């Protein structure tokens, strides 16, 4: 067993035990009624009379330069309102303000170069309908110069590969990462470490591009209207669909950067953005819609991005080759990791769009083992194909778990034992998760050596488990404003909803801390709060509750300070119970808190826990059971079991729902999901929902969720993030190896790869 996690408690009331609301069931989400009935308006649902449609010319080649020769016929077409080209004075200057993360190459809003098939380039038209837009685009005279393209980061890294962004790096396709994190580093002395090893093995892990696949194709809608508050500057207000995202609200900031109007002139149009995976790629429409609308006097503009076109955003490729040295007892003593990681095409304008803002997906995960000697080397290489998102930190654990599986296979040990031997900090979180998960899954009864169990129907049976961290997002500060008025506490928010129920979790924490009834705490959407960081995704939503707790404590104190005089007492002699101010000594003496007038407070801050890479306090262990058909190569995931350390579970239904969500996504990524291009033309072959198949109700495996609570996270009461940790597909590969005895080095684990692996066995390799 490893070390015990030790840290300072952060903030007030973290140790609370007397929960009345937090952790209880039966509190429907405030937005759930609207979402189920259809009353919730998503960006795709917005329409105003007179809405115009904008569409861009999209490149039919893997990479090309376009020469726009004549737009006059398009301009003359009835129903066309505007045609702009990349040479347009205003458009060509965009973005006007360049955030710091653009250091690796400015991405113009519209240029003459398209970096992938479907990329917007050259021309944008605005017309009364989609049909007229399409007709107008077909009337634009263009000449294409087809350019060489690269679809695989490994090809981009090869000497002699075409240089895709010479203005960024004239010598190669190598680029950097925004955080400036070192990409080559060494701990200890790797060569010495290998000398100590009883076994030396090499593992390979590869992942092709997964579509980000947001259920709602990006839907950009914007218009400008008179400032209803009549501010004297005379500027109009820009109403923009909001796909909110840290460090700000994507399209709003995009619009701000693009149109050059002050930040206070933007309003978000909808709190709903539909789901997204990790950091998403914001596309050009985010800026085009408000900019084109402004050009046309504020008329509503819908910028079209179809589902086909929305396959342009992906999770990047990553390819690892890792040499591991380990002792007879299964402990790692040397790791040498090489990683080629992809930076996809430019093709948008929001934060993260260039795939530059990535954390190094290198051997970071191995730092969480007790291996003393680690060498890590990586390179980010630019490709075409699609834009890529940032790469979430939990991916670092994929090669780590693969290394554990390799050790287990070599030494005929269960991988569960290898995990416990090698992860550096095991108490209390990992030990609790491993124990609870093994029991719920029936690990000890199910485990066998690779290839040693056949099911009654003739398929091979395999199981595996893998460990990973559960993240707290302590990188940014969270802004919470609370206002008590007429007996209720209000908290406005602007970040869009993506399915994590974070406002409901914040509501529960605020009610817990203030002593208000849950129904007297109103966490509501306020579309006029641009640039407020609060919750949204799994890790950030949970960490945001920490700031909500701090703000709630401040508000309660203020209410008690004002209200105590009404009860003839001191502030510490009164309390708030069920929304009433009560005398502690005699709770029958009470008054409604509304009588104290309006009281407000604000809190901006974050828990001390840093970003998750080096501090592992909350962990999780997933288990998986598969059946492999050796005739067809078809893999069925029979079930998943997930023991997740929530730290403290705040809203159980949505917390467990995130596990179901993430593991369902992981099952699709493990077995099917992958973007496939024609190698000759660079044209995407499976940009539709038939050929890029996400899991259906029939594909969803059984998912057993096992909540663990150690109170070790950085959110309120030690809570921590959920979904992020479970989205990758590698665990299924480990279970397949337990079934067939062979590792498959590249996701997804499609039948052809399984058959190939089985063929190796029959060839005696």
């Amino acid at each position, binding site marked *: 067993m490893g070390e015990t996690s030790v840290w300072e408690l952060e903030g007030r009331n973290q140790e609370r035990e007397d929960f009345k609301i937090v952790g209880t069931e039966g509190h429907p989400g405030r937005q759930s009624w609207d979402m189920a*009935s*259809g009353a919730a308006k998503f960006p795709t649902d917005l329409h105003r009379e007179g809405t115009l449609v904008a569409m861009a010319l999209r490149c039919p080649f893997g990479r090309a330069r376009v020469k726009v020769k004549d737009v006059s016929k398009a301009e003359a077409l009835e129903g066309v309102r505007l045609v702009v080209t990349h040479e347009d004075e205003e458009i060509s200057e965009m973005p006007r303000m360049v955030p710091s993360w653009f250091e690796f190459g400015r991405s113009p809003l519209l240029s003459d170069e398209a970096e992938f098939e479907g990329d917007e380039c050259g021309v944008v038209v605005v017309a009364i309908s989609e049909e007229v837009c399409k007709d107008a685009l077909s009337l634009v005279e263009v000449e294409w110069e087809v350019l060489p393209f690269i679809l695989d980061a490994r090809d981009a890294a090869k000497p002699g590969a075409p240089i895709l962004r010479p203005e960024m790096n004239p010598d190669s396709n190598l680029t950097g990462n925004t955080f400036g994190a070192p990409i080559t580093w060494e701990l200890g002395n790797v060569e010495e470490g290998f000398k100590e090893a009883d076994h030396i093995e090499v593992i390979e892990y590869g992942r092709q591009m997964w579509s980000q696949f947001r259920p709602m194709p990006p839907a950009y809608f914007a218009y400008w209207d008179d400032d*209803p508050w009549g501010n004297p500057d005379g500027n109009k207000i820009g109403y923009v669909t909001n796909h909110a995202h840290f460090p700000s609200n994507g399209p709003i900031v995009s619009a701000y950067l693009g149109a050059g109007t002050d930040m206070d002139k933007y309003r978000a149009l909808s709190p709903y953005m539909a789901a997204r995976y990790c950091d998403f790629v914001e596309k050009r429409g985010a800026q085009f819609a408000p900019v084109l609308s402004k050009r046309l006097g504020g008329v509503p503009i819908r910028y079209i991005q179809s589902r086909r076109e929305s396959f342009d955003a992906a999770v990047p490729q990553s390819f690892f080759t890792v040499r591991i040295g380990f002792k007879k007892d299964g402990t790692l003593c040397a790791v040498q990791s090489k990683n080629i990681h992809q930076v996809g095409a430019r093709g948008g304008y929001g934060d993260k769009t260039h795939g530059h803002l990535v954390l190094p997906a290198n051997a970071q995960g191995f730092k969480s083992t007790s291996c003393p000697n680690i060498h890590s080397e990586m390179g980010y290489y630019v490709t075409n194909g699609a834009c890529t998102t940032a790469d979430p930190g939990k991916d670092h654990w994929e090669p780590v778990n693969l290394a554990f599986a390799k050790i287990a296979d070599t030494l005929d040990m269960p991988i569960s034992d290898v995990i416990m031997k090698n992860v550096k900090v095991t108490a209390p979180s990992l030990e609790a998760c491993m124990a609870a998960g093994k029991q719920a899954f029936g690990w000890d009864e199910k485990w066998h050596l690779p290839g040693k169990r056949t099911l009654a129907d003739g398929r091979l049976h395999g199981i595996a488990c893998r460990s990973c961290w559960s993240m707290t997002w302590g990188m940014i500060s969270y802004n919470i404003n609370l206002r008590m008025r007429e007996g209720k506490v209000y908290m406005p928010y602007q970040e869009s909803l993506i399915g994590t129920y974070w406002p409901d979790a914040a509501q529960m924490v605020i009610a817990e801390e203030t002593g208000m009834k849950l129904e007297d705490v109103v966490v509501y959407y306020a579309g006029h709060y641009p640039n407020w960081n609060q919750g949204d995704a799994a890790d950030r939503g949970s960490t945001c509750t920490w700031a909500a707790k701090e703000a709630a404590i401040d508000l309660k104190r203020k209410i008690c300070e004002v209200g105590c005089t009404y009860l003839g007492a001191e502030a510490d002699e009164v309390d708030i119970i069920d929304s009433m101010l009560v005398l502690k000594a005699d709770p029958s003496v009470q008054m409604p808190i509304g009588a104290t007038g309006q009281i407000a407070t604000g809190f901006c801050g974050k828990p001390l826990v840093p970003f998750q890479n080096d501090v592992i306090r909350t962990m999780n262990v997933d288990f998986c059971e598969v059946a492999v058909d050796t005739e067809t190569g078809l893999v069925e995931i029979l079930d998943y079991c997930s023991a997740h350390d929530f730290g403290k579970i705040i809203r159980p239904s949505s917390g467990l729902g995130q596990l179901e969500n993430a593991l369902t996504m992981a099952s699709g990524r493990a077995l099917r999901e992958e973007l496939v291009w024609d190698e000759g033309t660079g044209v995407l072959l499976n940009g539709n929902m038939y050929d890029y198949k996400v899991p259906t109700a029939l594909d969803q495996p059984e998912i057993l969720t096992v909540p663990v609570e150690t109170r070790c996270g950085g959110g309120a009461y030690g809570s921590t993030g959920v979904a992020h940790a479970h989205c990758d597909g590698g665990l299924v590969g480990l279970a397949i190896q337990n079934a067939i005895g062979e590792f498959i080095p590249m996701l997804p684990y499609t039948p052809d790869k399984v058959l190939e692996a089985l063929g190796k066995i029959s060839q005696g390799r």
Partner: protein
Amino acid sequence: MASNVSRRDFLKGGGLAGITIAGVASLGVGSVLGTEEACAATATMTEFVYTCPVCGQHTSDYDALVKHFDGTHPGAAVPQAVALTINGTTFMAQVEPQWTLRETLLYAVGLTGNAKQMCDRGACGSCSVLIDGVPALSCSVLAVECEGRQIETSEGIAADPAYRPLFESYVKHDASQCGYCTPGHLTVAKYILTKYGDPSADQIRAELAGNICRCGTYSRHVAAIQEAAASLKGGN
């Protein structure tokens, strides 16, 4: 582009102050806050304004609109008016001949629960409505084909007191995560209840196989539908 009919306040709950939905018909939108009182009756259509989709000119009757096209936009497709019965209310909606029911719900009717579009056509089920009681993809049916058919949308089901247990169990079980696919699931859920009465998990999964949820909420739908079935059987 659309008929201007009496509007209800149902957008309130969607946080959309300031946006106008063209020609919103209040067709049994019902509760946005989940309260019993808001589970309201459908509204009546009172007046139409027909709008030229090419130049925006308004006319007060359809014949005048046709004349306007003859004179001003010869050769352009003349919008049609079609009698649609949605959530029990029959009304005339101005549509363009090529408009799907999904586009009509979005542009002309303003009931966007089942105007959701996850795929480009026919692959996601987010746009599922019931037509004559059977699930249909509104993205794949022309509005003009729907005359004389009974169309039900998620808004109508949510507002129907008879299916209140279904709506409530959806909310109780967090059947929505991001919520984008949920209205499409809700319409098929009603069909499942009418078809099976007391559906098994396998039957529910098979019937929902055409409704994609990226958030993986499938097991929540099974739980919600089965609970609703039990409530409905018990007469709740």
